[in-house]
């Protein structure tokens, strides 16, 4: 086997499912939105919920506006008698990381990971201000688009991109998303007015609701459950200082270090699924990951086509894995982000066995 694992156990993504991502889902509670996705991902493997070794989810009470909202969605798993379960108040990609660690410890052979978010009940731009430093930032209510725009202007000033190039990123993403039946925004979308200059509507993600789920399995279990498992040969996440003024916003050292630790640079990748909710962030990530022109970046359309907050990062891992499952990729890098201006970044390398 060409792959070399740097970890105790071989762990693979063996199944991936996601909802259609929609601007509103008022007719569905969170559990009603999540449950069909859980059923789909389990059906891909033939596993029943009770046969899963560990379950981990990612979501945010601030999106739902309710404390402990994840306990309600756990109803959709079938968590009685009590299952081995955990939750992160983060994107589902970090739930996947916890599940991967759990399998590495030997305490589980399989894991169900899901992430979901309904941005429609509230104003997500304002909701996300509550994740900021409460002393110096949150009292100013700098919204998520404003902070991304500061980063975009820094990139323009540094000569790393311009508005035309940024528009092309959005256009390419939505054109590619035309082949993705789950995407929210596809095809030709007007670049629109400035939301916060230099970012226009087309540089920003659609706001919507959605869910995604992944099943992880170790070694021979993975081989049994999936024709071509997407082996996670490396995974790491790093965070930068939360003071925006301390950072070089045109670079992402946390992504680069996570990528080094995950082994991205030890061989070529053919696919990159990047969690870049803003067009300008793709510029930063391409540089940090050293992606050349031969790499298919966000063939799913990425977060510019569907950005269900708390699921969009997990979806990047799922989409990269699904391409390996389908034989469309042999070595892919998947990335998830959290916080303002790419503050925290997770990088995973996914590989398929030789065909």
């Amino acid at each position, binding site marked *: 086997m060409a792959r070399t694992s740097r970890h105790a156990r071989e762990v693979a993504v063996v199944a991936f499912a996601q909802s259609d991502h929609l601007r509103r889902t*008022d007719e569905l509670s969170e559990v009603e939105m999540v449950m*069909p996705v859980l059923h789909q991902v389990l059906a891909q493997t033939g596993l029943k919920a009770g046969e899963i070794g560990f379950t981990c989810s990612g979501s945010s009470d601030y999106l739902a506006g309710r404390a402990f909202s994840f306990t309600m969605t756990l109803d959709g798993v079938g968590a009685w008698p009590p299952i081995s379960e955990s939750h992160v108040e983060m994107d589902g990609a970090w739930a996947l990381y916890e599940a991967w660690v759990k399998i590495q410890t030997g305490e589980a052979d399989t894991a169900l990971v899901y992430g979901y978010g309904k941005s429609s009940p509230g104003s997500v731009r304002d909701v996300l201000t509550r994740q900021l430093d409460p002393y110096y930032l949150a009292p*100013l209510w700098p919204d998520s688009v404003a902070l991304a725009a*500061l980063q975009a202007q820094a990139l323009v000033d540094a000569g790393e991109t311009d508005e035309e190039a940024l528009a092309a990123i959005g256009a390419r993403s939505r054109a590619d998303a035309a082949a993705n039946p789950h995407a929210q925004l596809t095809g030709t979308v007007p670049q629109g007015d400035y939301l916060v200059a230099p970012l226009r509507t087309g540089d920003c993600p659609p706001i919507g609701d959605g869910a995604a789920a992944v099943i992880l399995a170790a070694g021979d279990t993975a081989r049994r459950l999936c024709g071509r498992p997407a082996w996670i040969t490396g995974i790491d996440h790093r965070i930068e200082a939360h*003071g925006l003024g301390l950072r070089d916003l045109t670079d992402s050292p946390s992504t680069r270090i996570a990528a080094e630790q995950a082994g991205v640079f030890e061989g070529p990748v053919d696919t990159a699924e990047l969690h870049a909710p803003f067009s300008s962030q793709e510029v930063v990530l391409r540089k940090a990951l050293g992606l050349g022109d031969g790499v298919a970046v966000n063939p799913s359309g990425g977060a510019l086509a569907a950005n269900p907050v708390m699921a969009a990062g997990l979806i990047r891992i799922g989409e990269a894995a699904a391409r390996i499952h389908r034989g469309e990729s042999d070595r892919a890098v998947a990335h998830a982000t959290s916080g303002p201006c790419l503050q925290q970044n997770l990088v995973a390398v996914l590989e398929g066995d030789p065909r």
Partner: protein
Amino acid sequence: MTAASPPDVLRAPLVVEFPFTRSLGPVQSAFLTGLREGVVLGVRTSDGKVMVPPTEYDPVTAEEIRDLVEVAATGTVTTWAWNPAPRPNQPLATPFAWVLVTLDGADTAILHALDAPGPAAVRTGMRVRVRWAADRIGAITDIACFEPHEGAADAADAGAAPHDGVFADAVTGIVAEARLDYTYSPGRAQTAYINALAERKTVGERCPSCRKVYVPPRGACPTCGVATTDQVEVGPAGTVTTYCIVNIKARNLDIEVPYVYAHIALDGAGLALHGRIGGIPYDQVRMGLRVEPVWTEGGRHPDHYRPTGEPDADYDAYKELI
């Protein structure tokens, strides 16, 4: 999305407010008290850089840092973003630029708003100065915003001057006010439940796998992890399975204490819901008591439950529902 849409989706405003009271460390206290006094302080990091706004710990080494310095109220924009449509609570109500500003004497940038007539008046590298708020309390909003400033850094401001960070009546905490407004929709199952209640019916949903009837239904059977589908009218009468006596009067609740709050298994339900028991002295309520709902005019749910007068239920009849 498999669930069928009900004819009417319910919506209700949901307001979440959380005025957290946060204490300050010595560095943050000095910085925010300094703002109140019209002085901008930074802190020197382990490698000698001046960080504004300052933190308690070195962002690289995590060492405790306490070496305060005073920097100028003038500085240079390092990046900016024009905000044509200010949102609630943001520093200015008219269009403005978000800016990161490195103050003269500092090595790092501070985020704030810049009051400028339009995006054509803003550029990276432009000189700005603090516009102080009229009323200052020791908060980041004591800086009302930045405003354009003609003139290079004064020689006197080029370096940061040591400062002991001592002020009379130092600020030791902040109240971080926050309010988020949502429009809540309860989803298919709970919408059906609430709509039925409006007709004074209690309608649960049955799990197609284990047959348990959930009241109120939430759309999924937590044991089986499948959608509850069949609607089942339960009650109206039920059995008290357990209860407590409430002795503390809740704010905004016009009910005399003591009163009884109980778990009530409505006839046909697979689990108990909870409600207040009235129409009987509080010290006569007991497990097994048979009760029925009491509705008030215009109420969307039972106001409380009262005894039916039937004999008490056998323990065996409800022991699985406790």
